């Protein structure tokens, strides 16, 4: 019988090897927007082979939509390989900068304490502002943003890059 599609909606990961050519990023992102797939993040960078770029894509979707996404990606001439990272051990990190502004001395100390606890670096500062660099998993970074938002409301500036992921050798960090 034509079965109802599985409907477990969750975050899923794809590692994509693509030709390192003009327009490929536009093609892949256009595929997502054109077909109304829910793209959470997409990062791209050159690999050890300068003719190949690797994308890390995270989407929130059900199983059947995700299968369709992989098939659609596989159809693209510029896509060399599609690897599903959803249920395999991976190392995955995202870069996050948090600028905390208008701090008094006590608050600066508080930021340094948080940085120490959570293993993040203070990379720039002046008398009342601090810049933090966090390289963590997406969920941990989201937690940090929440923490700083609550601790220093209306005084933080945040910028995140998308996640990059690679298959684990022996243990995952998720």
């Amino acid at each position, binding site marked *: 019988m*034509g079965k*109802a599609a599985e409907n477990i909606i969750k975050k899923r990961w794809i590692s994509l090897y693509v030709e390192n050519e003009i*327009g490929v990023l536009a093609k892949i992102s256009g595929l997502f927007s054109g077909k109304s797939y829910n793209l959470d993040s997409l990062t791209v960078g050159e690999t050890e082979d300068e003719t190949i770029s690797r994308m890390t894509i995270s989407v929130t979707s059900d199983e059947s939509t995700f299968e369709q996404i992989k098939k659609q990606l596989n159809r693209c001439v510029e896509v060399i*390989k599609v690897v599903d990272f959803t249920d395999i051990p991976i190392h995955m990190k995202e870069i996050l900068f948090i600028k905390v502004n208008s701090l008094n001395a006590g608050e600066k100390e508080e930021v340094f304490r948080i940085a120490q606890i959570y293993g993040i670096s203070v990379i720039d500062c002046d008398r009342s502002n601090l810049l933090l660099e966090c390289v963590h998993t997406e969920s941990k970074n989201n937690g940090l943003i929440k923490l700083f938002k609550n601790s220093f409301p209306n005084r933080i500036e945040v910028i995140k890059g998308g996640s990059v992921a690679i298959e684990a050798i022996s243990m995952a960090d998720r």
Partner: protein
Amino acid sequence: MEMKGTSLFIKALKEEGVDTLFAYPGGQVIDLFDALYDSEGIEVILPRHEQGLIHAADGYARSTGKVGVCLVTSGPGATNLVTGIATANYDSVPLVCFTGQVPTHLIGNDAFQEVDIVGISRNICKHAITVRDRKDLGRIIKEAFFIARSGKPGPVVVDLPKDIQQAMGSDEYPKEVSIRGYKPNTGVHVGQVRRALSILSQAKKPLFLVGGGVNIADAGREFTRLAELTGMPVITTIMGKGAIPTNHPLYIGNIGIHGNYAANRAISECDVLFSIGTRFNDRITGKITEFAKLASIIHIDIDAASISRNIQVDIPIVADAKTAILKILEEAEALPVKEWTEEVQSWKQEYPLEMKKYEGMTPEIIIHKINEKFRNLIVVTDVGQNQMWTTQYLELDHNRKLLTSGGLGTMGYGLPAAIGAQLGNPGTPVVCISGDGGMQMNIQEMATAVALELPLILCVFNNSYLGNVRQWQEMFYGGRYAYTCLTARRSCAKDCKNPEKCCPKYSPDFVKLAESYDAAGIRVEKTEDIDGALEAALKRTDAPTLIEFIIEPEANVYPIVPTGKPLSEMVMD
């Protein structure tokens, strides 16, 4: 040895076996045209508009199985191709579209007639690329032809900057193609085939559903053998029509929102649906949760992304239709389904397709006359009621004989596609069936057909309306004919439903219009005049004949399945 880019371009076309090039000149391709001027062996066809041009290339490709090749200039020349690219993409038609481009140093400068056609067409074609280096020219053209014709065929756009065309470089055109991200499937999974046959062997009410993939793979004969071997009834999508001769006893008809009663009922009652080369488009499924809900579904498709996309299937087989059918034929057996097949055939007798409701000359009668008069013809349709009536009543004995824009539903497709079909099939009668709306969308191509001395037979079903939409307005929008009357004048009452009373009888007068292009024009208003008009058209061998059939303005296409309803809930008349 070194040669100009333009010379390599021509060499490449010849190596790819291109004998017909649909081309429209302009500033950024003038060098290519200059080179073509000296070239032998490639006929350059000059349509009157780039949209007509690409539909003609599409008609040529669909009817011959070869790659259709277009050459247009940059900017508006390229953007005029867009509808044709999407049309070809939806129906898996192999095209290579060369677009001129401003020189590479001007790209991005908003130069005169510069447009990012690769960016525009990326999501409506199989592949699109700009040649940015003369050394890549040969490889990219080779890859374009390979991508267009292999796997699931489709249109490829190759953007050629003017300086690349002019630059000197290698004269080598590659013999081989190796694209690491593109490896079309050429085999078939034997295990899946056996699983499919195993399910089939237990079926009591199995049914074949055949789509355009069978016609594209030229697998009609093989499929007919398979149908005869198993004894299963066969239904088709409009794109699959012709895969099995329509007069074959196993052929039941088209399914879908304008499918016939027996085909739609068979879908609702079958216990195994063996589908080949169809995407389960919403036009054929009706309410999706009700589609073939009693059936286990086997699905063969060359495109993995088409499998379990709209309908979850039980046995997926990713393969070319012909390869898969040949493999199935090796192991398939006759099935004890005579009773079921006879039952489905009896529904066909009980509820035949017919336009009984209307008096006088109906599209059904006209198409029956075409069936009688012509043998081995190619029929091209436009889009709308004309298309639905044609796909309902036309008799076909082979694939590649019915060309219709099924996926995109592109009005204006008919006339130019007929030109392409005639060019690809000299000596074969080509009949175009269109409506008064669609015919006017690319009417300028009458000049092309006349210039090329093509004996096309252009049948215009003139009902003075955009009939398909008008029918929906009649049935589902309270009869409010919002802007679908083609003879309406500004001064007409909005609720006028009788164009003949206060408006010109013909708008345009298609007979005069045809004559103005130096084609023949005939108007037919009575059934008894159909034969004479078709015979007169058949006698002309060096110019098109346009026959304007004045049909009942409010004739509808039946059956119809309203939006959101299951196929079993057909409105019969």
